[in-house]
């Protein structure tokens, strides 16, 4: 009896492990590798691919006005307040980013939503609209006078502007 049970358990485990090895790629959404958070690397710090993504509309005045319109009309302002200081949703101007502090992280919050109640706009708005929204949020953050990241970014940008590579920290 014991041998039979042992045999069944071993067989089940083997089959189960075989099954899980066969289908990993079908369970993962496409292009997940871009946003994987890497482990440390003895050869030097690695970055996520998406850390390097730049907002094509950053500081573009036309895009900022469009972003402001979208911020109001897509009901962002009612959750995050017109000034971005937060209410139902978290503050967008205090420099604390729950889900990551790169432009791509902000893009993917709007695009895909988040599990604590942020709805997904990705299948309703084209990517350009979402980038314009992110550009406007960054402008709000800069205008808010909140210390922290905004000041740090300005310093980095100033240092970067003087360096031969030109702005990339």
């Amino acid at each position, binding site marked *: 009896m014991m041998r039979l049970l042992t045999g069944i358990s071993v067989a089940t485990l083997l089959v189960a492990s075989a099954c899980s090895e066969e289908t990993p790629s079908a369970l993962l959404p496409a292009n997940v590798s871009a946003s994987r958070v890497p482990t440390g690397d003895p050869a030097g710090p690695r970055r996520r691919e998406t850390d390097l993504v730049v907002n094509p509309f950053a500081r573009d005045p036309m895009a900022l006005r469009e972003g402001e319109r979208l911020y109001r*009309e*897509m009901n962002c302002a009612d959750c995050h307040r017109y000034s971005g200081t937060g209410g139902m949703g978290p503050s967008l101007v205090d420099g604390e980013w729950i889900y990551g502090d790169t432009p791509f992280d902000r893009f993917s919050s709007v695009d895909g939503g988040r599990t604590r109640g942020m709805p997904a*706009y990705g*299948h*309703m*708005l*084209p*990517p*350009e*609209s979402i980038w314009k929204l992110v550009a406007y949020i960054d402008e709000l953050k800069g205008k808010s006078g909140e210390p922290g990241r905004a000041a740090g970014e300005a310093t980095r940008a100033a240092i970067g502007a003087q360096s031969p590579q030109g702005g990339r920290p």
Partner: protein
Amino acid sequence: MLGVSIVVTILVLIGLAWAIWHPRAPGLAPEADRPADARGERLNDESGGRGHEESGRPRSERTGVRVMVWAGAVVPAVILGVLLIVTMRVLADVSLPAHALADHDAPPLPGELTVRVTGRQYWWEVKYLDAEPQRTFETANELHIPVGQRVIVRLAADDVIHSFWVPGLAGKMDLVPGRTNVTFIEASRPGVWRGQCAEYCGMQHAKMAITVVAESPEQWEVWAARQRTPAPTPADSAASADRRVFLTSGCVLCHAVRGTPARGELGPDLTHLASRLTLAAGTLPNAPGHLYGWVANPQTIKPGSKMPAVPMDPAELHAIVRYLSTLR
């Protein structure tokens, strides 16, 4: 008015002609040609330049005054007074009632038809007002009016200045953000008139037309009753699936379809889209091919308009257009 003006003009011209060419008393040169004495007075001319009557007596001052008073003041005053009364009556006839001008937010009185037209870049929101909330309804870019009834039009704008101009029916009236202008239109016969935004309002100002359809009061009632009804419920599961695609797409961020959860406030109300003559404020005829093109990418047809190219695959596009075509 015209007749009176013609008569008065003829009389004045006759009078003027007589003044220029009337026969003078014999022997008396025109005043300008008479010799003047050193002090600039007439010699032995008791008439003071007023001439003499047939009897030889000089004309008195009083006669001249009488002519001036009667021909110059009283008769014109009477004529103008009559014309004034006629003008006031006509003006009253072509003006809005005082309450329509005074309170831009009050619901219309019974028997009045009041429409609120809000100009947006680049389309016209048309809202039919009523004291009963359930009888109000909203449409876009098309204004239906009953023949022979004055329709009060309240004009508002949210973004920039537009101008409401239906050349066949009325003059221009601006839509100015922050204030409500009021005008009216009235059609005396059935027909379709094209109107145009007449104040440059941005990139697509040229493609911001409004269509005014005048129809008999009975036909208008039928149209209004139809517009008040919510969107029809889908007839079968395929239609339900189409509606579901529409309700989960980006369309509902901006558009409303009454009778569904779609209640976007930013773009035209689509509840009866399929009943309209044109798309995109007169830019395109309302036909399936044009609707496909418009929904798929409005920026290629009307670049700079506020409607974005919502991401969708071909199956979604077909479902959405199919659903919109049922919104008669």
